[in-house]
């Protein structure tokens, strides 16, 4: 009897102490940039990780935007207060690669025994975040690509049931729609991702020399001399004809809002917004997605990945790294890919993730209709020099410059070609300054 009591006391003491240990989770910080609805979904994903195990706790903190996430991380790093994991968007890739402040993903996976099959990532995605030698330095997380969102009812008005495949066909449809009474065929803003970056990729056109910057810091921009210039001039024509409209937050409605309330019949946007469109579309809106149209004479190539990836920062403790490793393992499972892509429009980044989702009937569900087109678009061809990605320094600034010049051209203040030439000149200045700042360094 006494032994039983002793045993019982000992057992409860043990249980008690291990219970207390379980409360001591190792915390590590995970800073992310998404906001609004997409940000809320990321928070939920974070909670899922915390609920799935007892050892670690990811402290997920939204930074209020991708650009703020980048800025805040840099400020924190300079004061040695950086987080362990950060979500940085595509445009920030070069800055982080050259920073010397990160723990390259492939090395991290090796050091912390995360079993990752790097070839499992879709090449279009992997290449964007990999060095010139093909080593991936960050973990792709929320990836997307651009699609054409089209209003089926508007197209029905001109007797068509399929989305246009070529740009010529698309513009033709828009003009026909105008005569058929559609107020706005195409809503656009000055974001460069769709018209410049994606356009150049799928048409296999360079944006800059040196393989869009992969080959060195001395790249120069060339987009004012490619078909892109014609594309922009065509948009201006549509604008002047009243067939297309500028839709920005300043105007009062973003392109998505103009699409979801039925004003504009087509917009170019990220597949990530597929879920948002679904939930905010006005009732009865009959819409779908299609791959981006291509000019007739060009062979279609793969589109670029957008979104963000997760980077590991240097200078943290081994325990925090263990936690981060656990998080990466968790996020890379097919089940989590399914959960995440169900909650929002981001696409699975691995082939196994995609297969898993397919097997589970994800893409057969009418709610998700069309999302597989994103994968098709991303994997249409193996990436070429021009469709591998963009590796230009200070790309955020460059995007802002191009946006400014496009705005001037579209609002009639400048001729389009002049605007593009100036955009190239100013952007090249930015590149040279970046090069000077990193004198003597080479891109990994």
């Amino acid at each position, binding site marked *: 009897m006494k032994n039983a009591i002793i045993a019982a006391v000992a057992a409860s003491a043990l249980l008690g102490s291990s219970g207390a240990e379980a409360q001591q989770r190792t915390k590590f910080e995970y800073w992310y940039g998404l906001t609004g609805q997409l940000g809320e979904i990321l928070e939920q994903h974070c909670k899922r990780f915390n609920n799935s195990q007892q050892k670690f706790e990811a*402290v997920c903190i939204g930074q209020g935007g991708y650009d703020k996430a980048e800025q*805040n991380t840099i400020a924190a790093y*300079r*004061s040695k207060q950086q*987080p362990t994991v950060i979500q940085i968007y595509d445009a920030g890739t070069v800055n982080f690669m050259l920073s010397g402040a990160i723990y390259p993903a492939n090395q991290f996976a090796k050091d912390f025994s995360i079993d990752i099959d790097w070839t499992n990532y879709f090449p279009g995605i992997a290449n964007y975040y990999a060095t010139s030698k093909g080593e991936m330095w960050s973990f792709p997380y929320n990836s997307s690509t651009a699609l054409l969102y089209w209003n089926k009812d508007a197209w029905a008005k001109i007797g068509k049931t399929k989305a246009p495949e070529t740009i010529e066909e698309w513009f033709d449809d828009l003009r026909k729609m105008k005569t058929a009474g559609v107020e706005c065929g195409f809503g656009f803003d000055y974001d460069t991702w769709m018209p410049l970056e994606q356009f150049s990729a799928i048409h296999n056109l360079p944006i800059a020399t040196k393989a869009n910057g992969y080959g060195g810091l001395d790249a120069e921009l060339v987009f004012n001399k490619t078909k892109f210039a014609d594309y922009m001039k065509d948009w201006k024509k549509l604008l002047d004809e009243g067939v297309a409209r500028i839709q920005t937050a300043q105007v009062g409605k973003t392109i998505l809002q103009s699409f979801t*309330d039925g004003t504009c019949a087509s917009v170019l946007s990220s597949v990530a917004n597929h879920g948002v469109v679904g939930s905010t579309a006005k009732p009865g809106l009959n819409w779908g997605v299609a791959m981006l149209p291509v000019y007739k004479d060009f062979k279609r190539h793969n589109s670029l990945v957008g979104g963000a990836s997760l980077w590991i920062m240097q200078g943290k403790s081994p325990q925090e790294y263990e936690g981060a490793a656990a998080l990466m393992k968790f996020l890379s499972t097919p089940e989590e890919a399914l959960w995440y892509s169900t909650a929002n429009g981001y696409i699975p980044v691995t082939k196994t993730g995609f297969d898993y989702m397919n097997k589970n009937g994800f893409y057969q569900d009418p709610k998700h209709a069309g999302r597989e087109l994103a994968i098709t678009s991303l994997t249409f061809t193996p990436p070429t020099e021009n469709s591998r990605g963009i590796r230009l320094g200070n790309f955020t600034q460059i995007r802002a410059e191009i946006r400014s010049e496009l705005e001037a051209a579209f609002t009639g203040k400048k001729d389009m070609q002049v605007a593009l030439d100036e955009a190239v000149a100013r952007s090249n200045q930015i590149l040279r300054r970046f090069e000077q700042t990193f004198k003597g360094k080479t891109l990994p």
Partner: protein
Amino acid sequence: MIERTPILDAVTHALMLLGLVLAALPIVVVFVASTHDLATVNRVPMPLWPGDHMAENYARVWDKSRFGEKMLNSLIVATGVTVGKITIAALSAFSIVYFRYRLRMVFFWLIFITLMLPLEVRIVPTYAVAADALQPFRVIAGGFGLELGIPQINLLNSYAGLILPLVATATGTFLYRQFFLTVPDELAEAAKMDGAGPMRFFIDVLIPLSRANMAALATIMFVYAWNQYLWPLLITTDQKMATATMQLQKLVPGPLFGQPPLWNEAMAATLMVMAPPLLVVVFMQGWFVKGLVASDK
């Protein structure tokens, strides 16, 4: 109003009414937007009368953003800044106005110039200092070859870090200086003749005279500190230290990423964040106006 001027009165009334509309309209819009559901508020144009989702929106935003915690943080910060500012500014202005020493105009300008370089612009080095508040002294000592073992005081994620940089600016000192300059010299002379020391004069004469002035400054400072969003956003990474206005920024993604914000929730949050400063203004109104009025001498 001494004589009768009916026409002028009518015109005055009309213009004042217009002013009322101008002042109140934006806030009315915010309120109306916060009472609709997402689809309605995204409609163009938004209906002008209130919807019936008010309680639902506010409750949801309060819970989702954990507003209770954040409002408390904002309250602590705003109060801290207010109290700190009133005290420090009064002391500094007193020193500048009532003491004669060669450096006093230099000091005044040193303090005054801080108005001209906003926080936004020096935010990265200020952040570095907040992470290591005694860094300047360590570097300077190092420059003289002294290794003083100065500790690292980390103000990030702390109330001190949120409050101190905001207390450092010059509005209060400027205001007090202007006010002290209008206080008649006779009062100070009388105090001196009575054998009262400077601090006695300060506490017994100047402070009571400045009471209403302080109310004015207090209101302005409270509102200013409550409405800060960029600095708190940078200096707090721990959600428990976040302030209410920070939360507002989170609910409205910038215009460049094409994601439509949840307008009805954002407007509800706006109103909730606006409420405390508004209440302070209402409450302090009486003193406030009196305070800027130089008291009858």
